[in-house]
């Protein structure tokens, strides 16, 4: 059996890297004494995968991880036990048990919803959102492992809006097509002819697909 757990990575931990977070979660699982599974081989480690690494600097409101366990475990029990073993800035919010054959969250992931809070509010950029979206293409330069690459991010943007001084967006997040919130904001501000301000990014939710609609990844 595998556990799908939704967790929060709080503001205090936004500059803790992916590998450090992974290790913190593994240690918490050890402390929890839950029947977790280890990899085979010479240096066994706890089996644990995150749906998608979070950008350094961002807060994760509903991140998702998959934890294979031995036998059957009650999800409510899993949630309580693990929460008791976690530091205050990491919290399990929901938990669901699935079969081992269930596709991994990494494979089911399609997109993510974000918010960004620009320093000094979003009033200046808000009027440009409509025209920005009306563009047929939005060229952007993506840094990849093999260098820089020009891409059109327009098809990767599924939603872009502004409310209460915050910018909201739903963006592609899958192997073949990923647009980071930081990249979108960079293009948006350039389009508006404004200097990109300092902002705090939150990843609000990871999304999978049901038919043609996005649904929370943990429900897929």
């Amino acid at each position, binding site marked *: 059996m595998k556990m799908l757990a939704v967790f929060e990575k709080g503001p205090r931990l936004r500059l803790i890297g992916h590998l450090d977070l992974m290790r913190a979660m593994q240690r918490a699982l050890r402390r929890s004494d839950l029947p977790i599974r280890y990899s085979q081989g010479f240096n066994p480690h706890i089996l644990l995968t995150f749906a998608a690494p979070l950008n350094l600097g961002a807060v994760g409101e509903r991140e998702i991880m998959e934890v294979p366990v031995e036998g059957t475990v009650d999800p409510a029990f899993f949630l309580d036990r693990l929460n008791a073993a976690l*530091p205050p800035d990491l919290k399990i919010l929901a938990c669901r048990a699935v079969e081992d054959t269930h596709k991994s969250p990494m494979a089911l992931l399609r997109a993510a919803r974000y918010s960004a809070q620009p320093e000094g509010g979003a009033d200046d950029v808000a009027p440009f959102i409509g025209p920005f979206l009306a563009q047929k293409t939005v060229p952007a330069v993506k840094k990849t492992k093999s260098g820089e690459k020009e891409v059109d991010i327009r098809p990767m943007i599924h939603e872009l809006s502004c409310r209460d001084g915050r910018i909201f967006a739903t963006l592609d997040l899958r192997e073949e097509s990923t647009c980071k919130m930081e990249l979108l904001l960079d293009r948006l501000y350039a389009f508006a002819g404004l200097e990109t301000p*300092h902002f705090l990014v939150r990843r609000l939710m990871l999304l999978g697909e049901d038919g043609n609609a996005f649904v929370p990844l943990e429900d897929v």
Partner: protein
Amino acid sequence: MEALLEAKLEKLLEQVQKPARYAGGEMNTSVKPFDEAELTFAFCFPDTYDIGMSHLGIKILYHIINKQPWGLCERVFTPWPDMGDAMRREGIPLFSLESRTPVRDFDLVGFTLQYEMSYTNILEMLDLARIPLYARDRGEKDPLVVAGGPCAYNPEPLANFVDAYMIGDGEDVMVELCAAVREGKRQGKSRLAILEDLAAIRGVYVPAFYDVCYNADGTVKSCTPNRPGVPAKVQRCVVTDLNGAEYPESFPVPYTDIVFDRIVLEIMRGCTRGCRFCQAGMIYRPVRERSLDRLLALADSLEKTTGYEEISLSSLSSGDYPCLAELIRALMDRYQQKRVSISLPSMRIDNIVKQSLEETQKVKKSGLTLAPEAGTQRLRDVINKGVTEEDLIRAVTDAFESGWSTVKLYFMSGLPTETDEDLQGIADLCKKTVAAYFSVPKDRRARGLKVTASVSVFVPKPFTPFQWVGQDTLEVIRGKQERMREYMRLKGVTYNWHESTLSFLEACISRGDRRIGDVIYTAWKDGCRFDGWNEHFRYETWLAAFEKCGLDPAFYAYRVRPLEEVLPWDVIDAGVTKEFLIREYEKALKGTTTKDCRKGCNACGLQRWKGACPAYENARGV
């Protein structure tokens, strides 16, 4: 911290190296509300987070203070230069990790003194905290600045910056001191009155209550109390019962990588082998052991509360722990299932039991570290390192036969009476180590022999039998290092040597007097910090600081002190007496050894204090 500053801080953290160092919020750290505590203590480690969090003392004292219902302890480390500079630029004061409270808002600000070359970081931290650096400039609203740790045994170099020192084992005196400050606060006492209360506690030294006079030649004439009720000599604190002593049942578990990221079990404190260069061996006397039961219980709770995958046993000479093999076996039995490995970091070569070697490597094959310290038997006798060449060769052969292939050997150069023969002896031992490896049949030894020999420069330390000797001059050291490089052109051996200028400054400060404080201040003012880090060590600036202060570093490092000279640290009674140290010094020069006092008391001085030395009292049937 105010919201505006906090916002600035958040922004700044995105720009500095390793921001995780400043995040806080780790598992098992304090979550007490700052405003509700009656007594607040900022525990300051004058180095980076990664170094400080690896240190056991901070974990013990953090636990002890937070255990008091009225006490709160939070941690502070030295911001790396990029962060320190940015904080100054943005007007962000030094803050604690837990609640991000400015350090100057704490009642007590405590520094642990682990090595002399961290002293400029103390000034850096006080300055970033906006606390006046000199104790005499602090007012009623400023925190009391206290300090402890091994380097505090010579409190004089930092005497002008520290309000009160705690000398010796910290477990009890820390609580006493905090309680006294809390009481003073409650009664609305003045700073001075509180310091007077503190001076009455055993182990507490308040530098401002002592006047130092100097002779015309620059040596200390006297250090005497300048008010009634202050002891002429401050007796160090001794925790006699290690089983009864507090020990944390949980450690903070860092997010980011630190140097020693594991459970540490202190199995013993003190060492009675009596190596004459070793300050720890003198100031942590007598030997006190934790019982097997207590250690297993601590291991249990630490394993549960941390989730760590490794337990290391710590003491000055773990091999001397009476039930070492039993302890390792018991730990392995318990934790093999949970995939926890056991490691022994500091083993002495003369009683490594082959069996325990085999047992540790079953769990984890780390390298073997041995410290013969000197290259010849003659010099090992001078320093009373009771280890023979046969011991060493047997130990490494055993290790190679048990499947180890990495050996680290530690030596010192510049020890009293050292000759060229002793230097060649180091190379000789390395050769014999390599030969020992090849003496093991090919099919029984592990592949990939790696012998590393590290040679450091000897630094004479207070409260050792060598506290009177002069350090080798830089010229002499350099000559020796050049020859060593020749001798050490050996196949299969990596040779490391240490920066001699750093050891020279360490020698100046470790046996320094109160006037050295101005040199430290000047060096810091001129940009020195993180002196222990190669990339930040600025030797020229230090030399200039001596010059500006009109002091000669050679006077501190090179000078041989006459036995009757008043030493700056004579105001501290460390347990071991001067008579004992003189006896040992004289025996050293004759090349006579002194036996381990578990085989009979050597009257080091601890026997003067009732109940302090279990070995002495047991032998006398007290």
